[in-house]
C-alpha cells in the first residue's frame, strides 16, 4: 500500500471532519475563483471594447468615462444629446445637404451617429445608420476575448494583435438606410430572446416598461464578436427618429408628425434635420498625409474639446483610466480579502489535524513499530493535507464557477459584460493550485512534525 493510499485511508477514517475541513477550504477557494474570474471577464470585456473600429467618441460635454461606458459598453446613462448640426461638422461635402464639407471632415475617415434611450426587453436599443456595420470594424487592437484568447493565455502566449474585421452576419443582412424600420440584433440578444431574421420587435421608450414604439423588423443577426455589440439592438435611426418622444421640439409649422405603423410600406417622411439630435458620434480619424494618425486624433480632440458643442473622448484612454483607478484596486482588495479567507480555511486544516493528533499518534506509533520511517509518517500527514486541499480546491473551483454563472445575469445587467460557467481566468486559476498545496503543506507542518517526533514506546504502551 502506497503512502498515498495510507493518507487516503486516514482521511476516510475521519470522514466527517475531513469533509467539513475540505468544504471550508472549498468555500474560500470558491470566493477566490469567482473574484478572479469576474475580474478577468470584466477586464477582457473592457479590453474587447477598445478595438471597435473607431478611436474617438464625440458626445455632449460631461464625463468622458460616462460617454464611453454608454456608447461602447451600452451601460450607464447617456449624458445629453448633441445637435445634428454638430454631427454634420464631421461629414464630407457629399454627405451634407448644403454641399459643404464639415469643419472636422478633413480629419475624419468615418463618423457614425448613434441615438440611445430606448430598450427592448432589457437590451439597449441603438439608433444608427447602415455605416455602423458597413464601415466600422471590430477586433482591432488586441486578440478578441473569448475561448481563443483564454487558451492563448492559458498556455502563456501573449495576446496577438489581430487585424480589424468587418462585421459578419450569422443570418440575414444589414439594414439599408432606406429601410426605416429595419434592425440588426447582436447574437446574444437574438439567442436570449429567440428572435430570427424577419421577426418584428417593438422597442420601448426610456425603460422596459416605457411607451411601446412602433415595431421594427429584424433584417439580420450578427455573428459573435465577443464585444458589447453582441448585446445591442441596432435600429435604423430614421425609424428611431419617427418614434414618439424622439423628435426635438420645433417650431409649430416645421414640426413633423411621427409616422404611424401603417405608413411603413409607403416610405414615411424622414424627420427634418432641425428636429434631430444624436447621442454620440463614433469617429474613426483619418490618417492625414505626412501626419501620424495619433497626431490627427490629438488635434481633432483638442479642437472639439476647446469648442462648446461637445467633447471628444478616446475609448482606450478612458478604459485604461477605469481599469487603473477602479477595477484593478477593487480587484486587488477583493483578492486580498478572499485570500485571507483561504488562509483561514487552511488554518482549519491545521486545527482539524491537530485535533485528531491524539488518535493519529497511536496510529503513527503502530506504523513506526511496523517499520515505517519518520519520513514516511511525515509524508503521510503532509499528503493528507494536500489531498484535503486538492479535494477542497476542486470543490471550490466548481463552486466558484457555479457562483459566476449564478451572478452572471447580474453582472451583465450592471456591468454590461457576459459571464457564464465556462468563463475563466486560466493563469490565475492555475497559480491557485500550487498556492493551495503550498498553504496546505504549511498548515500541516505542525501536525506532521508532531507525527515525525512521536514517541513510539509511549504510545504502544
Amino acid at each position: 500500500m502506497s503512502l498515498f493510499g495510507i493518507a487516503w485511508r486516514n482521511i476516510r477514517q475521519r470522514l466527517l471532519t475531513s469533509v467539513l475541513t475540505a468544504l471550508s477550504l472549498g468555500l474560500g477557494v470558491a470566493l477566490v475563483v469567482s473574484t478572479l474570474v469576474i475580474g478577468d471577464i470584466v477586464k477582457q470585456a473592457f479590453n474587447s471594447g477598445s478595438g471597435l473600429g473607431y478611436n474617438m467618441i464625440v458626445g455632449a460635454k460631461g464625463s468622458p468615462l460616462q460617454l464611453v461606458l454608454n456608447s461602447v459598453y451600452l451601460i450607464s446613462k447617456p449624458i445629453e444629446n448633441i445637435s445634428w448640426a454638430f454631427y454634420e461638422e464631421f461629414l464630407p461635402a457629399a454627405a451634407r445637404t448644403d454641399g459643404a464639407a464639415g469643419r472636422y471632415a478633413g480629419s475624419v475617415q468615418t463618423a457614425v451617429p448613434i441615438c440611445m434611450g430606448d430598450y427592448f426587453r432589457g437590451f439597449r436599443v441603438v439608433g444608427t445608420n447602415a455605416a455602423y456595420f458597413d464601415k466600422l470594424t471590430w477586433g482591432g487592437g488586441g486578440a478578441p476575448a473569448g475561448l481563443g484568447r483564454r487558451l492563448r493565455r492559458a498556455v502563456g502566449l501573449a495576446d496577438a494583435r489581430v487585424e480589424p474585421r468587418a462585421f459578419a452576419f450569422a443570418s440575414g443582412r444589414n439594414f439599408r438606410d432606406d429601410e426605416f424600420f429595419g434592425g440588426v440584433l447582436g447574437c446574444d440578444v437574438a439567442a436570449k430572446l429567440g428572435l430570427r431574421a424577419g421577426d418584428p420587435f417593438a422597442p420601448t421608450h426610456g425603460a422596459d416598461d416605457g411607451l411601446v414604439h412602433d415595431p421594427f423588423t429584424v433584417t439580420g443577426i450578427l455573428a459573435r464578436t465577443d464585444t458589447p455589440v453582441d448585446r445591442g439592438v441596432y435600429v435604423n435611426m430614421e425609424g428611431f427618429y419617427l418614434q414618439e418622444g424622439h423628435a426635438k421640439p420645433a417650431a409649430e409649422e416645421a414640426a413633423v408628425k411621427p409616422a404611424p405603423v401603417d405608413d411603413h410600406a409607403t416610405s414615411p417622411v424622414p424627420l427634418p434635420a432641425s428636429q434631430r439630435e444624436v447621442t454620440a458620434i463614433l469617429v474613426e480619424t483619418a490618417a492625414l498625409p505626412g501626419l501620424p494618425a495619433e497626431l490627427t486624433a490629438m488635434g481633432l480632440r483638442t479642437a472639439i474639446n476647446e469648442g462648446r458643442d461637445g467633447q471628444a473622448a478616446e475609448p482606450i484612454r478612458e478604459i485604461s483610466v477605469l481599469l487603473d483607478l477602479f477595477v484593478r484596486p477593487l480587484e486587488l482588495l477583493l483578492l486580498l480579502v478572499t485570500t485571507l479567507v483561504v488562509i483561514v480555511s487552511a488554518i482549519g486544516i491545521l486545527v482539524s489535524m491537530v485535533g485528531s493528533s491524539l488518535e493519529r499518534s497511536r496510529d503513527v506509533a503502530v506504523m513506526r513499530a511496523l517499520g515505517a520511517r519518520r519520513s514516511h509518517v511525515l509524508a503521510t500527514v503532509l499528503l493528507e493535507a494536500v489531498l484535503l486541499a486538492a479535494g477542497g480546491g476542486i470543490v471550490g473551483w466548481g463552486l466558484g464557477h457555479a457562483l459566476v454563472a449564478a451572478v452572471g445575469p447580474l453582472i451583465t445587467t450592471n456591468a454590461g459584460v457576459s459571464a457564464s460557467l465556462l468563463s475563466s481566468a486560466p493563469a490565475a486559476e492555475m497559480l491557485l493550485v500550487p498556492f493551495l498545496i503550498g498553504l496546505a503543506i504549511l498548515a500541516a507542518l505542525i501536525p506532521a512534525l508532531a507525527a515525525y517526533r512521536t514517541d513510539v514506546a509511549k504510545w504502544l504502551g
Partner: protein
Amino acid sequence: MSTPVIELEQVRKSFVMPGGERVPVLDIDAFAVADREQCALTGQSGSGKSTLLHVISGIMRPDGGRVVVDGHDLTRLGEAATDRLRADTLGLVFQHFNLLPGFTALENVLVAMSFGSGRPSRPRAADLLASVGLSHRLHHRPGELSIGQQQRVAVARALANRPRVILADEPTASIDTAHQDQVIELLKSTCAEQGVALLVVTHSPEVAARFPKRLRLEDFNRAATHHG
C-alpha cells in the same frame, strides 16, 4: 543451540524520572533467542518486559551494550536502517492488537508490507489472512471483527514481511481464557510452519507453560531484581 536471531550482551537501559532520578530498568549480561526457537518470557509487572521488547525491536536504544538481531548490531545502525531491519526481520504482536482502525484486515497486512523491502502483494496478504482462518473477513475493519479475529489479523500482519522472529507482548492479556489457548496455539503453529522464531512476553504462568523454553526476566535482569 543454533545461530541466535536475537542476541543481547551487557545491555543496560534506565529511565530518568521527572525529579531527575535515574531508574535502571534493564541490566542484562546475556540473552539470546535461537533461530526457530519458541520461548516464553515471564516477569512481574514493571520488571522491564516491554522495555526489553522495545530494545530488541530497535524502538528504544539501550544506554549501553549490544543488541544483535539477525546478525545486525542495532546499536551501530542508524534510525532508518533500524526501521528497515524491524520491518524486514521482526514481526510485532501487541497486547491491544493495535490494528489501524481505518483500514480493513487486508489493508492492515498491506500497510506492514509497504514498509518492508519487498513489494506489497494483495494475494500474499490474503493468503496470510486465510492461513489464520480469516479468508472471509478480508475487507472488514477492526471494529467489525471479534477480539479473537483482531488478534488473528495482528498475527497475519506480524508475518507480512517474512520475519525471522515474532515478538509478542502479552498477546493474551486482553482476551478470555478460552481464546488464550487458541491464540497461543495459532502463534506457535504459524511460527513453526513458517520457520519463524517466537518470543512471547507474558505475565501468565499458564501461557508460559505452553512453551518448551521459559525464562523469568528476574533471573537474568539485574535491574528487575533490584527494582522488583
